């Protein structure tokens, strides 16, 4: 077993410092990358971002440098930066780290992005449940205004930048970038049809960059150490280190910063301490609950966008959920499917109707009320949700169903044959 290398460029939770304080953050070299970015100039910063090949950490994995390049240079409209801090995909808890413990890293990333693209207003959209994180980020912003890091003249340059926190109010769908824009504008969070893409028509009808918290947190590192260094941490076309979260049935759940391309099995066994109670792995969801599930024979893969594609799954948010032997996968899928049914915004009929139908069929299977033909019905209904919808929540609802049923069909069939849950007398691991 190879030893997994961990880093503390992004994740600095163990060094005893309180990075919420501007003084501590600066003492560790914070906000120096802003000055370097000023020296480099906007074009060079965008070029570095492209070369660093940092892929969006919010789930879709789109290269950030290329996204920045889509924002029109010459326009008479204001441009906006909107930070996606709506973290809510089950199994994902990494952005929470920056918002709780290292908010200045995010703000520094926002400043550099804004300078590079000529942006003067930035909104950080934070999910409503994060009351304490909203306070933490708000305080960090206030410190920056007092220190002349934000406002009319950013660190004595001629760049003007205002950064505001915008609170959400409890709707997972607002994590989808266009729903987030609707919500920022004061409307219900219902995704927009694309195109036009936000880079051209985004917030308030103006060109807008939307990036995930972790994506922006990598920016100061890239500017400080250079794109070549950053690429070297990861693999070609998927650069850097990233924060991977491991939850579920492991002995040492938590966040780990690893190079892009680290082996998933090694992360689970070495960093996350292996499976609870010494059990075998039954299943792994690799990148947040919307990603197709893997069996224990499929987890020997590099954590890259391409690596997970090879096993017909997705890297998503790098939120690895480990499910131990003895667990009822029907119950697991039941939780996931009820979630997507509950969070569907209701605009598209296949998603609105399909997600509810899927959840009800799974309820019936779990309760032992289903017929064998319901399994194919389940696949059929699930299969008709994605692809025909305005946003990717449709796919997120469909993929877990197809993968769970195809990989664990026997478990589903056994519920139907026995007319009850065969796992009811097998307790989940104790921790």
């Amino acid at each position, binding site marked *: 077993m190879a030893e997994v290398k961990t880093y503390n460029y992004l994740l600095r939770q163990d060094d005893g410092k309180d990075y919420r304080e501007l003084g501590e953050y600066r003492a560790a070299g914070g906000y120096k990358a802003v000055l370097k970015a000023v020296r480099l100039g906007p074009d060079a910063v965008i070029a570095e971002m492209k070369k660093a090949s940092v892929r969006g950490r919010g789930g879709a994995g789109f290269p950030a440098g290329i996204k920045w390049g889509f924002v029109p240079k010459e326009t008479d409209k*204001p441009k906006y930066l909107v930070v996606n801090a709506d973290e809510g995909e089950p199994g994902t808890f990494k952005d929470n780290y920056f918002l709780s413990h290292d908010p200045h890293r995010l703000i520094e990333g926002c400043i550099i992005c804004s300078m590079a693209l000529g942006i003067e207003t930035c909104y950080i959209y934070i999910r409503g449940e994060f009351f304490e994180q909203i306070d933490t980020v708000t305080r960090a912003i206030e410190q920056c205004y007092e220190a002349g890091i934000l406002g009319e003249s950013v660190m004595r340059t001629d760049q003007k930048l*205002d950064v505001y926190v915008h609170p*959400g*109010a409890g709707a997972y769908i607002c994590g989808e970038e266009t729903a987030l824009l609707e919500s920022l504008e004061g409307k219900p969070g219902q995704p927009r049809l694309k195109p036009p893409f936000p880079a051209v028509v985004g917030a308030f009808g103006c060109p807008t960059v939307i990036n995930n918290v972790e994506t922006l947190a990598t920016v100061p590192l890239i500017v400080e150490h250079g794109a070549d260094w950053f690429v070297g941490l990861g693999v070609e076309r998927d650069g850097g280190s990233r924060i991977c979260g491991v939850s579920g049935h492991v002995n040492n759940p938590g966040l780990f910063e690893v190079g892009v391309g680290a082996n998933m099995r090694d992360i689970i066994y070495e960093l996350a301490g292996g499976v609870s109670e010494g059990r075998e792995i039954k299943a792994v969801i690799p990148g947040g609950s919307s990603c197709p599930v893997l069996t224990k024979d499929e987890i020997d893969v590099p954590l890259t966008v391409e690596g997970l594609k090879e096993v017909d799954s997705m890297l998503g948010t790098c939120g690895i959920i480990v499910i131990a032997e003895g667990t009822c996968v029907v119950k697991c899928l039941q939780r996931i499917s009820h979630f997507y049914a509950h969070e569907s915004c209701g605009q598209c009929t296949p998603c609105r109707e399909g997600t509810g139908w899927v959840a009800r069929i799974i309820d019936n299977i779990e309760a032992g009320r289903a017929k064998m033909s319901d399994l194919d019905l389940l696949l059929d209904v699930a299969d008709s949700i994605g692809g025909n919808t305005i946003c990717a929540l449709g796919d997120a609802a469909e993929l877990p169903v197809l993968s769970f049923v195809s990989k664990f069909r026997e478990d589903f069939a056994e519920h139907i044959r026995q007319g009850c849950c065969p796992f009811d007398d097998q307790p989940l691991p104790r921790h």
Partner: protein
Amino acid sequence: MTLAFSDESDEEIARIMKRYPTRLAALIPTLWVAQHEFGTVTREVMELVATRLDLPTAKVITTATFYTMFNKKPVGRFHVQVCKNISCYLRRSDDVTAALKDAIGVGPGETTADGLFTLSEVECLAACGRAPAVQVNKTYHEWATPEGMRQLVADLRASVNAAPMPPPEAHDG
């Protein structure tokens, strides 16, 4: 008595409005200010917000009703919310919910008759690595156990007996 914002809230709303190019964009933050002051976002509160921001009441209603965190009906002084999603489920959040139900005396979605506790089951709180996660008002309680939650409920009850009633949102659980 007609509803009105306190001076403090009114100033806060004025500051919020300056952040955005449209009045509508100030709506969600303003609804938070309103909920903070009045505890719930009733029809009357929505009308007040509409007047303050000079927006059609229908727009305010459309947005306020879309978002689950705006309380349309009163919630208990302690809103105990247990995550039931996959990572928490795997670490036995159902046992935590059962213990809370027993200690509080009502089921998910219900409020105790004395108005002290509301119990809810919620979706992922982005604390999956420290599951099971429970949120009481604004504060997270991670690695929740049935025993720990029984104790928490007892402590919250005791804190109320010891201190007079503060306004609902101001309490941190």
